C-alpha cells in the first residue's frame, strides 16, 4: 500500500516537474524573444552592418548568460525586467536591464504593445518615434540614426555628413576663431615675405 502510494505520488511529482519544465520553457522562450526584424530593416535600409547593440544592452542580443542577457541577470535585474514587460502602454518609465537607453526610450515612447505591433512593419518605427528624441545628444534624432544604421547611444557615431553639418553649427565659434587666426597669420607672413624682399633689394 505504502509502496503504491509512493509510486502514485512519484507519478504526480514527475507530472508536476514536467509542467514546471514546460512552463519555464514557455516563459524562457517568450522572455528571450528578440525582434531581429528591426535590425534586418536598418541594415537593409542603410547598407551598414548593425547588431542588437542598437537597442539592447548586449550586442549579441538578450539571449545568453553575459552581461545584459536574460540568463545572466540577478534578482534585482529580473524584477526590473518584469516591470518593463508590463509596460504595454506608452508613457511609463522603463528601466529594462536587457535594453540600452535607446531601447528603453522606444518602449517608453510607444509602449510594448505598439513595439510588438511594429515588428511586422519595422520601417514605421522611425515615423512613430518622437522627432526630438536624441538619446546621445549628438544632434541627429534617434529616428534618423535608426534609418542610417548608426549608433543612437554613441555621440561620436552618426552619418558623417549629418555630423559635419550639426557640429559645424555647434562649433561655429571655435571654427570662426581658428579661421580668423589662420587668415591673420597668413596675412602677417605674406607681409613679412614682402618686407624681407624689400630689405634684400635695398641691400
Amino acid at each position, binding site marked *: 500500500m505504502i509502496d503504491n502510494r509512493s509510486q502514485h505520488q512519484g507519478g504526480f511529482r514527475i507530472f508536476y516537474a514536467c509542467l514546471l519544465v514546460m512552463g519555464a520553457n514557455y516563459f524562457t522562450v517568450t522572455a528571450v524573444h528578440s525582434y531581429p526584424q528591426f535590425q534586418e530593416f536598418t541594415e537593409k535600409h542603410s547598407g551598414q552592418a548593425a547588431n542588437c*547593440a542598437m537597442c539592447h544592452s548586449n550586442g549579441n542580443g538578450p539571449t545568453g548568460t553575459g552581461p545584459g542577457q536574460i540568463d545572466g541577470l540577478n534578482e534585482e535585474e529580473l524584477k526590473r525586467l518584469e516591470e518593463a514587460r508590463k509596460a504595454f502602454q506608452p508613457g511609463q518609465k522603463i528601466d529594462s536591464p536587457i535594453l540600452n537607453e535607446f531601447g528603453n526610450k522606444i518602449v517608453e515612447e510607444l509602449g510594448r504593445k505598439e513595439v510588438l505591433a511594429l515588428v511586422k512593419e519595422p520601417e514605421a518605427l522611425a515615423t512613430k518615434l518622437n522627432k526630438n528624441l536624441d538619446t546621445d545628444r549628438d544632434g541627429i534624432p534617434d529616428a534618423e540614426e535608426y534609418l542610417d544604421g548608426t549608433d543612437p547611444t554613441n555621440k*561620436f*557615431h*552618426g552619418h558623417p555628413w549629418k555630423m559635419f553639418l550639426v557640429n559645424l553649427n555647434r562649433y561655429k565659434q571655435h571654427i570662426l576663431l*581658428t579661421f580668423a587666426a589662420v587668415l591673420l597669420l597668413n596675412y602677417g*607672413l605674406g607681409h613679412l615675405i614682402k618686407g624681407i624682399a624689400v630689405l634684400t633689394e635695398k641691400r
Partner: protein
Amino acid sequence: MVETQKVDSTEPETGNASTGDTKPALFSFLLERFPIEKMNFHYMVEKKEVPVHRMSWGYYTGGLTFFFFMIQVVTGLFLLFYYQPTVSDAFLSVEYINNHVSAGPLIRNMHAWSSSAMIFFATVHLIVAFAMKSFEKPREITWIVGVLLLFITFTFGFTGYLLPWNQIAVNATKVGLQSIDNLGQYLGPFSHIPVQLRETFQGEASVGQSTLGRFYAMHVVILPLALVALLGLHLFQVQLHGMSKGVDEKTKKTEKFFTAFFFKDLEVWAYAFLALFVLASCIPFESFLPFPLLEPYNALGATPPGIKPEWYFFFVYYPLEMFNFLFIIIASTIVVAILFLTPWIFKGTSRRNLRFIALAVSAYLIVMTIFGEQIYHWWKH
C-alpha cells in the same frame, strides 16, 4: 612673384663634387651624395633656390607630410597621458579620453585624421617626386630614404590601428598578421621566416596582451625614432642638393628657399591646420565604420562581418581578396623592387613618360580606394 629672380647661369642642377678615377666606386658615390664643401648654412639655406614652374605645387607635398607628422607627434603625446596599453584597459582608456578628458575627442580625432592625411600626402609626394624625376643623380639616397619613410608611415598606420582594442582593431590585425604567416608556404626552405616574424610581432599564440604591448612599443618608440632618423637624412639630402628641376624645359624663374618658399610653406601648413581642425571638430573619424565594429573586442564572440583594413591599405587588400595570394606577393615584390631601384630603372626616361606612369599609378590607387569594394563584389559575382 616676390623674391623671384631670373636663372642666369647654366650651373648643373646637381652640383656634383669632382671625383677622381683612383677613388673606389663606393667612396665616389658617397662623396657625390654627401659633398662636404656644401655642408654649410650658406649653401644649404641662404643660397638655396626653388624653381618656379607649373609643377611647383609638388614641392609643397613633402612639407605637408612633415606638418601632419608633427601633428601626429603632438596629439600622440597628449593621448599618451591617458592611454593604457593593456587588453583590459585599452578600450576603456579610449572611452575615457572621448568622454571625460577636456578636448579629448578633438585631440583623438586630430590624431586619426592627420594620420590619414600624412599617409595621403606621403603617397602624393612619392608620386609627384617620381613624375618630376626628383630621384635623378645625385638624389638617389633622398629617393630611397623617402621610400623607406613611406613604408614606416604605413607601419605606423598598421600598429596604431590595434591600439583602441575594439572589434575592428583586433580582427583586422589578426588578418594582417595571418597574411604574413601565409607567405611562408611559398618560401620553401625559408618558410619558417614569416612564421617567426609573425610570432615576433604577435608575441603569443593569438593576438593578445603581448601583441598590444609590442605594437604600442613600435608605435610610440621604435617607429618614431626610425622615422626621425630617416627624416633627418631625407631633409639633409634635400637641403644639400636643393630642389630638383621638376620639368623638362628650362625654368625661367626661381625663388629663395629662405624666406620666400619657407614662409609660403608655413602659409600652406596654416590652411592645412584649418582644414584638419574643421574635420576633427565636425566628423568623428569612427563614424565611417559600422558601430558593431567599434564595440570592445570580445575574445569569445564571433568575428563580426565587415572587417577590413584602413582605406590606405585598400589598394592591396582588395586585390588580395580577388586574386591568388602568390600572384599578389610576386606583384608586390616586383613593385617594391622597382620602387627602390627607380633611380636606376628610370634613369633615361623623360619626365613626360614618367608623368604618364605616375598618372596610371594614381588612377589605380584612386579607383581601388574608392571603388575597391564594388569591384570586389562585381568580380566575385
